[in-house]
């Protein structure tokens, strides 16, 4: 129920996020940040990606390499047939004079220096945090109705005209006001569902396929992804998609009211502007 405490027509604080959403959100922020950075450390042990069951070393679809260009070392990233000079970022990075061969640069990895063993330790520790956190989110979200009530689009939101309208207002960076701001808009719902129901579980499943022991027990899963190297590629692409989501998410958080959004994810209270005193329930 909304807490329209005062009958003031202008601003009301509504209860936006449950305590479960808030705790699992910030736990995920920590876990995903460390998983990403330690994951890049692990990627750096062999900074190349392939499709299929095995590596085709001469022909990766993505590779970060160090190559000599006119007698000078350069970081060269290959993407299919395309070649990019990414010196300083991918392949050959570090302070001038102290450059080293590595896929992702030091500032993007945990630990910053090269250590596959340490990167793995960080990765698997926080993978557990991530998995337990995700299970708690899904369990409470399904039982408590968060998924159904807040994330599944309503019938009126699914009308093509409404979706087109939402795309239009999003493109113009116009954000919902008043009663409409009580719930997630349809693009938000689709995006959050894509993340929590597809991308995040995909990280766990493709991650499990990195285990040869798990592959032997559940061979169909790695086959479903198209082989172990495909699974590694999908693990990387899915992580990239999550990074893209986070960038857009942060941008929209800032543009649609940084402090209001931050407060709602910390205290749960979100301010909306209404013309008339609020009635009815809200997300």
């Amino acid at each position, binding site marked *: 129920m909304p807490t329209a405490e005062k009958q003031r027509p202008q601003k009301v604080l509504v209860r936006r996020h449950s305590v479960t959403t808030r705790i699992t959100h910030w736990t995920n922020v920590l876990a995903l940040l*460390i998983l990403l*950075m330690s994951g890049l450390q*692990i*990627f750096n*042990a*062999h900074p*190349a990606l*392939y499709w299929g*069951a*095995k*590596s*085709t*070393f*001469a022909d990766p679809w993505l590779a970060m390499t160090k190559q000599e260009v006119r007698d000078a070392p350069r970081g060269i990233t290959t993407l299919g047939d395309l070649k990019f000079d990414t010196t300083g970022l991918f392949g050959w990075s570090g302070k001038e004079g102290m450059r080293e061969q590595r896929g992702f640069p*030091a*500032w993007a990895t*945990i*630990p*910053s*220096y090269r*250590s*596959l*063993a*340490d990167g*793995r*330790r*960080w990765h*698997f*520790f926080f*993978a*557990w945090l991530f998995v337990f956190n995700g299970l708690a989110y899904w369990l409470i979200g399904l039982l408590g109705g968060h998924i159904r009530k807040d994330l599944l689009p309503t019938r009126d939101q699914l009308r093509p005209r409404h979706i087109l309208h939402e795309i239009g207002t999003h493109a113009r960076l116009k954000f919902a006001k008043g009663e409409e701001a009580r719930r997630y808009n349809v693009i938000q719902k689709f995006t959050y569902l894509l993340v929590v129901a597809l991308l995040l579980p995909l990280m766990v499943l493709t991650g*499990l396929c*990195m*285990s*040869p*022991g*798990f*592959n*032997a*027990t559940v*061979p169909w899963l790695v086959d479903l992804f198209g082989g*172990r*190297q495909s699974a*590694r590629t999908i693990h990387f692409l899915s992580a990239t998609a999550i990074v893209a989501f986070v960038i857009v998410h942060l941008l929209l958080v800032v543009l649609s009211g940084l402090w209001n959004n931050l407060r709602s994810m910390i205290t749960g209270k979100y301010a909306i502007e209404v013309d008339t005193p609020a009635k009815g329930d809200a997300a």
Partner: protein
Amino acid sequence: MTVATNRRRWLTAAGASLGSLWLGACDKLTADPRFSAMLAKAEGLTERAQRLVTDRKALAKEFTPADISRDFKANGTLSPQDYAYETLLADNFAGYALTVDGLVEHPLELSLADLRRQPSRTQITRHDCVEGWSSIGKWKGARLGPLLDRAKLKPNARYVVFHCFDSLEQTLDNTGQYYESIDLIDAYHPQTILAYEMNDATLPVRHGAPLRLRVERQLGYKHAKYIARIEVVERLDATDANGQPLLGRGNGGFWPDRGYEWYAGI
């Protein structure tokens, strides 16, 4: 404009300082033994969870001849510089004999010809390196299980240790010598073989000639190359009278001694 530029500069600086603070903290935590011990605890959880959900007798997927990698990557030692090995290699391993000893009733000395007469298995499997790459190869070798039966394990036998010819790291205390170990479930797994052939040819030096372990369902570093001796033991962390580990640094393998997991499950 200047206000915006200043703010942008301030934000960039703040972001960069926060970033380096975060990275510095992560590096410091990694170096802190208590913190790495905490991180390592999760590895115990991972191992137990994996043991719980996986069938340890399950066979690793076997591939078809068309799947075999023509560019099977060789890693670790590619050509041992150790005197004993070079001597044997010069004579094409004619003088080679595999020792099987430790907690066995009948220690064995097996030449390559002996090994080729043992019950064998041929398998086309995928080799997954801890670095992330995979290659597919065809292996033929003596099954380890029947060999251990022939040597007859003593009741307290728990682990099979593979001592290798190559020293992957130069150390004064000899802990740079490559070795690996597996438990008896893996040792008796039908796909666990001592391979002497790769892709229908004699095992090449870079892939571990004359004999390498294939223990499918585990990461590449478990597949010890250049095997000189097989020792059956009760404990991997046993120490001598001075408290020095008898096997490497006491973690059951060259890479496990250097921060990687002994069970090599993921």
